[in-house]
């Protein structure tokens, strides 16, 4: 079985982590996501691209049920992680969100110390039995967030005092501290300068080793650089989904081609 799987990976058939079937999202009367079917592979970076308002962020927020916090939002269809329906009655969204971490568009560290920013998730989920455990988790998470070397001497300084790029990596470290299986990123680089963007992109590539990463981006170059799979959304429809290389060089749908060549969007 294991051998088989390795072979499968080599021929690019990793096991499916998230599968969505006939997903519809409504904001009140507005039908924001229409008939989206997608299978997102484990240990892969999947990019969602598309013009503003096409529903890519909305769909991303369905995966950890962040849309539940919006009163008028209604989700239909099935989204399953590892075959388990996350919109099942028995699923507690709080538990789900520990499994599906999220990084937001604007860096949003808590106005607390760097240490507390990372330690908050593990604390509320009871991942650490004592202070020493927690220290280990904090260090490991900050290392995974590729920010340990920059902050190790000032763990008790406020997280809001870091630069924008550092704050975003801190947020990524915070998201991985709860040991999620999926990492959702909603335009994580849109508020960052090119150098910080490059650092975060490098980090995303490393995170692929351990997580299934789904990233929403406005930058097609970024999608091409970091992702293996790309999904193109337009007006609420998932227009095309496939290998990143194929989407950018040889798209099937004329709308995809128009978008990546800059004619719509």
């Amino acid at each position: 079985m294991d051998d088989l799987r390795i072979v499968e990976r080599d021929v690019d058939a990793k096991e499916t982590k998230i599968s969505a079937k006939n997903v519809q999202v409504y904001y009140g009367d507005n039908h924001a996501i229409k008939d989206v079917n997608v299978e997102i592979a484990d240990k892969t970076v999947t990019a969602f691209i598309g013009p503003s308002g096409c529903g890519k962020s909305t769909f991303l927020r369905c995966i950890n049920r962040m849309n539940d916090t919006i009163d008028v939002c209604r989700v239909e269809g099935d989204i399953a992680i590892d075959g388990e329906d996350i919109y099942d009655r028995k699923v507690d969204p709080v538990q789900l969100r520990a499994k599906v971490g999220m990084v937001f568009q604007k860096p949003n560290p808590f106005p607390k110390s760097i240490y507390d920013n990372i330690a908050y998730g593990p604390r509320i989920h009871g991942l650490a039995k004592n202070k020493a455990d927690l220290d280990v988790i904090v260090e490991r998470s900050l290392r995974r967030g590729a920010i340990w070397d920059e902050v190790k001497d000032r763990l008790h300084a406020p997280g809001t005092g870091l630069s924008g790029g550092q704050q975003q990596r801190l947020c990524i470290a915070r998201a991985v501290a709860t040991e999620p299986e999926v990492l959702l990123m909603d335009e994580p680089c849109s508020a960052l300068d090119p150098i910080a963007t490059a650092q975060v992109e490098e980090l995303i590539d490393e995170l692929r080793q351990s997580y299934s990463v789904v990233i929403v981006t406005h930058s097609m170059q970024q999608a091409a650089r970091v992702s293996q799979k790309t999904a193109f959304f337009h007006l609420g429809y998932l227009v095309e989904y496939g290998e990143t290389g194929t989407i950018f060089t040889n798209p099937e749908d004329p709308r995809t081609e128009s978008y990546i060549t800059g004619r719509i969007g």
Partner: protein
Amino acid sequence: MTDLSAGGVPAARPKSSLLTEDARTKKRNAAERRFKNYGLTAVLLGVAALIMLLISILGNGLSAFQQTYVTLQVELPAETLDKEGNRNRDEMAKVSTFGYSPLIGAAMERAVAEAGIETELAADEQGDIISREAAAQLRNFVLANPEVVGETIEFEFLANGRIDGYLKDRVNRESAALDKNVSPAQLDLTDALQEEGILEKRFNWAFLTMPDASGQRPEAAGLGVAIMGSLYMMLIVLGLALPIGVAASIYLEEFAPKNRITDIIEVNISNLAAVPSIVFGILGLAIFINFAGLPQSAPIVGGLVLTLMTLPTIIIATRASLKSVPPSIRDAALGVGASKMQSVFHHVLPLAAPGILTGTIIGLAQALGETAPLLLIGMVAFVREYPSGPPEGFFDPASALPVQIYNWTQRSDPAFVERASGAIIVLLIFLVSMNALAIFLRRRFERRW
């Protein structure tokens, strides 16, 4: 482009120098200058009103913090004050203030004689320099310290209100000649006593600690009971309005679904903030006193009524400060798997706390100065007894600072004008320090992100 130029294109702006103002610019600049002047005038008017208020209040009221005292050697004969001779407090209490008055009169006469002051005044007229409250003062002292009976003690008596007024330039010889309560001869004696050091004007702690006194004894009237009553009410308001208000706002802001019912609740809370305070007084009278049977004039009822009045202020302030916490903080907390309640209590509430505190203090300050509802629930009564310690004291009759001011302005003796203004100063000091605390807290704990 081409079809645009074909239509009616406005004529090109005539060439003009940047160094000369054209007519439009002149007009706009003039309008701006006029507006600035209106604004400045408005600010100056406001400041002038404030200054006038302060001058009038301070001018009338500062003298309330000074009081004239007469220091006399009083003989306390055992045969009249303690007939049984056993220093039993209950036995001694049978001697009323009428038993003490002659002692004070005698002490006054002796002091005048010893100092060698010439006066045609009779003994009782000399004694009238001392307050009518003096006998009660002395009696209370003797009952509290029975061992002094039989001795001669030095005792400080309050001077009569008219004499006190003379030292504060409120009474002069012309007004005294028309006044049956004081005569010019008594004023002469006052001058002489002051020269001898028997009569002097000192800082008036009693104003802040003593209870109210009757209309004939303005010199003895103090704010003690009113301050206690106001303090008790503020404790009740703080203890009830803060938790209820904060819980209501958190629920409405963070948990409640946004629908028609919550909209109606929201509008009604804003309306509640605009309800005239006297209406709350009627409500308190109907519900807390007539229906629930709570005692009249008690801080508990005042506190409950003021809680109702303060709640909307606290709810509105708390909701505003909860709203001002950026949603990204909530997202961040939910994103790492915090529950709604954890995200509110761990992240949102600490960030909103300075705003909540400020709103609460402002609400308390409003409640502290509120008069109308207290009049309706009987806190306007004349109360001479201090309420006991909390929590039983919450049910004892008490007064309140603003009502005490209202009370004193109703009395005929001009000395009460001074007392009322002095009480206003005390109230203003409380209000200003509460507002200063609110500003300090906001500056100190306000977080920027």
